[in-house]
């Protein structure tokens, strides 16, 4: 049980790091945003895992149910999801503009163009 | 809920699961795109129907039943439409069926990797 109790968190950590890796290792601007998305979603999973109560029900009050999962992380993550999609959309808008200005969305090509002019 | 309903539900779920598995097998093993879309398209609609029916037989409230029927209707509408659109788009994009040996039978106007 003890190992299992952390297994959940560890998987989340692995997920976060996979997303984080995509963000910093990839040169494609769109792919970076995808990585950012994965990174954020994994943090959401961390929060939600923290709110789970074994044997609890969804936090919608009903007769005869005593044990509920924690509603607070759910609320926080609802907000965080919105923040995530907002960031993604702004990032994508910038990518579109960058593509219009440079004709490419690869970081290396952009750096090259900036260096030459 | 009587045992009879439960049995019926189990049977439906079993058939549904079987269909799902066959569909997945086809999706994994068939040689080209059109065969694969056939495998999923056919089994998917039927399997979804059976699984949802199985679930339907398990519930005794009105609201979940209504929702299940809604889902069922929606899937019945959208799934074939999506398959159709996909196949059509693939054809327009120049994806062509292959024969048994895996070679392209129809020459391609232009490729789209």
């Amino acid at each position, binding site marked *: 049980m003890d190992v299992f109790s952390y297994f959940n968190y560890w998987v989340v950590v692995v997920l976060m790091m996979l997303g984080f890796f995509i963000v910093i290792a990839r040169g494609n601007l769109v792919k970076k945003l995808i990585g950012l998305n994965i990174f954020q979603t994994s943090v959401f999973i961390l929060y939600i895992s923290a709110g789970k109560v074994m044997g609890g029900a969804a936090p919608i009050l009903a007769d005869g149910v005593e044990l509920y999962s924690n509603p607070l992380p759910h609320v926080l993550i609802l907000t965080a999801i919105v923040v995530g999609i907002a960031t993604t959309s702004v990032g994508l808008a910038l990518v579109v503009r960058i593509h219009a200005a440079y004709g490419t969305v690869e970081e290396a090509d952009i750096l090259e163009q900036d260096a030459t002019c | 809920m009587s045992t009879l309903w439960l049995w019926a539900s189990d049977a439906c779920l079993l058939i549904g*699961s079987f269909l799902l*598995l066959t*569909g*997945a097998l086809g999706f994994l093993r068939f040689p080209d795109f059109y065969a*694969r879309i056939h495998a999923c398209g056919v089994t998917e609609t039927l399997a979804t129907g059976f699984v949802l029916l199985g679930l339907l037989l398990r519930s005794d409230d009105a609201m979940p039943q209504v*929702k*299940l029927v809604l889902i069922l209707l*929606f*899937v019945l509408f959208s799934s074939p439409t999506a398959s159709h659109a996909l196949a059509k788009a693939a054809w327009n*994009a120049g994806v062509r069926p292959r024969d048994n040996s895996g070679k392209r039978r129809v020459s391609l106007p232009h490729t789209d990797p």
Partner: protein
Amino acid sequence: MLSFTIIVILLVMLVALARAFTGPNVFDRVLAANLFGTKTVLLIAAISYLLGSPDYLDIAVIYALINYISVIGVLRVTEIRRERRQAGAE
């Protein structure tokens, strides 16, 4: 029986994921994503019965909607690209 169905669905999802990964072309991936979506609908529905809370069915409805929209979205987008490429070539 319910849990058996859930396991089967998870299995099918794995297959779809494998196909989404291997491709070979875009449409296979779209198909895989579509399959994945419909299987999620079933999964959520089944889970909601396993946990005994029919509220979850709302989520299944959403999945069905979203799934359809995203398939259409992918198709339209690939099409628009092709049209524009052709327009550019002419």
